[in-house]
């Protein structure tokens, strides 16, 4: 009896000191704000646009407005294509890094990481001056006599896609790199020895063994894509809103925090659904860096 009591205490103190801080962190910075958002999403606003704690489902009813539905669809569309492009560009690149000699590997890896040190807003503005009507790209093309009048590159869905891919590319490359690096070179050699050609080895050996990286990367790219309102604002010129824009607007000029909260809940539900699909497909939560 005394012995078990003793061991209980012996376990409690280390448990509190090690798990305690993170539990508090999660409680105060994640759980409570989440509950607050959920509660607010059922509130209404008073005549001064303040949040008033009168229960209503109006915010959720407004979420089914056809314009909103079209914007959700547009967000998913942009996020989907961003993810596909990131996979197509990221996989060969990650493979190349993972298989490079160690000295070059470090340099290549840095090439992905270093741009992270500059604020993404600044980098996105950089694209804007690069692609503008009188921007660098148009100037160069005109100097080379490839075009006579400036091409309108900016302010469409294409440039939003470009901005999203540009911002989120590293999130695809890093999990892919980790997955490909773990791949045992002997398996590829074995496959070749047994007569499989390159394409067959890729589809039956390499890809299945690194698919966890593809899944993890896809989640890491797809989810932020739904909320990156600044990319659609700056490179899309505000013409093609994503869910992030809707949320931002309700907390700003729209002055309707409860509606913004309800929109946030939709975003959270979409995120949870995607993670669920990811798990169903056999994705490993640890590959997401958690």
């Amino acid at each position, binding site marked *: 009896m005394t012995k078990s009591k003793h061991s209980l205490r012996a376990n409690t103190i280390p448990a509190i000191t090690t798990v305690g801080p993170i539990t508090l962190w999660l409680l105060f910075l994640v759980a409570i704000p989440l509950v607050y958002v959920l509660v607010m999403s059922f509130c209404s606003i008073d005549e001064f646009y303040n949040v008033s704690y009168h229960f209503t489902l109006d915010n959720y009813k407004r979420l089914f407005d056809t314009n909103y539905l079209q914007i959700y669809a547009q967000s998913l569309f942009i996020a989907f294509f961003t993810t596909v492009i990131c996979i197509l560009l990221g996989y060969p690149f990650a493979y190349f890094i993972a298989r490079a000699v160690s000295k070059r590997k470090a340099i290549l890896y840095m090439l992905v990481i270093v741009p992270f040190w500059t604020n993404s807003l600044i980098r996105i503005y950089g694209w804007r001056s690069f692609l503008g009507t009188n921007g660098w790209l148009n100037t160069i093309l005109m100097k080379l006599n490839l075009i006579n009048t400036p091409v309108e590159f900016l302010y469409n869905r294409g440039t939003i896609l470009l901005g999203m891919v540009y911002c989120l590319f590293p999130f695809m490359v890093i999990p892919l790199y980790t997955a490909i690096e773990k791949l045992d070179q002997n398996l590829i050699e074995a496959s070749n020895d047994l007569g499989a050609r390159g394409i067959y080895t890729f589809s039956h050996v390499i890809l299945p063994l690194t698919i966890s990286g593809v899944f993890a990367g896809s989640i890491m790219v797809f989810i932020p894509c739904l*909320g990156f309102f600044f990319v659609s604002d700056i490179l899309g*010129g*505000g013409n093609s809103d994503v869910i992030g*824009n809707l949320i931002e607007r309700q907390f*700003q000029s729209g002055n309707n925090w409860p509606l913004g909260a309800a929109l946030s809940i939709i975003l959270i539900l979409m*995120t949870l659904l995607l993670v669920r699909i990811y798990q169903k497909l056999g994705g490993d939560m640890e590959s*997401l860096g958690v």
Partner: protein
Amino acid sequence: MKKITSCLFILVLALSTILAGCGGSSKTESGTTLNVYVWTEYVPESVVEDFEKKTGIKVNLSTYSSNEDMLAKVKSESEGAYDIVQPSDYMVALMIAQDMCEKLDKDKLTNIGNMDDAYMNPSYDPGNEYSIPYLGGAGAIAVNTDIIKDTITSYADLFKPEYANQLVVLDDFRAVIGMAAKSIGYGMNETDPAILEKVKEKTLSLKNNIKLYDSDSPKSALIAGDCTLAYCWSAEVALAMEENEAIQVVYPKEGPYLFLDNWVIPKGCKNYDAAMEFINFMMDAESAKMVGEEFPYLNPNKAGVALLGDDFINNPAKNPPSDAIAKGEFVDNIDTDSLAIYDQIWTELKK
């Protein structure tokens, strides 16, 4: 447990994108420090330093970039966290309605005679009981005359189909929908659903002409040549004109959308006298001149404007003609049902 933590991590990821838009910081100190909360790039350092030198009062400036940010911050901080804030017209009204402002003691405002009567006694604060205007502007039209050869005289002209994909407009739903309403003879603050239906149709017909929504720096698109027409603040046009002489300012014959930003003392202010001294100092002609030199907004301080010289006075973008201003209209707070309709129109325009 691991699964839960993992899920929570993903939620943090999602939440962080939501919260990215909400920011801001403040430092509060007690004593003779005046906590002044103003718009970004709006109050020159030099004027504040002058004030500190002359009075020995230390000024702690913090900045915001939207009226709504400011309101939320003032409400969430403890009373007295800010001694002076700088809300726009409609926000002054909203703050007065919620009893958030201290009355101004006019006896202490000895420089009030410097102000132009045209901007005093405004609809949002009759008698200037709670607010004194600082700077303002009009929702003007900018035209790049190198490319647009027609004469533009009104908001209605911006809707012409030949200007497809030429326009940069303020990323502000009340400004744009109000402009569309004015172009067909209504006001900035319509709330009648039948009228709003017509306004909606008119607003949506502008979609094809709008290339870009930008409130932060609409001049950039004009200067870079991305857009040839703009519906933006007169001060932005003034700055664009300095970069490109072909750009001209037009005040619409329907009367422009107007805004005025004001000095207001929030309720519970801890340094009322110092705050009044600051507001009075900002109304001084010399201070107003320094402000005008750095920020070419509509300056309601006529003594200051007189010191700014002919370059400023004769520049219609920096010093909007009084007949244009007389026809101008402020945005006002509307009921929440109408707000929802405006929001719907805006969402449909921007999707």
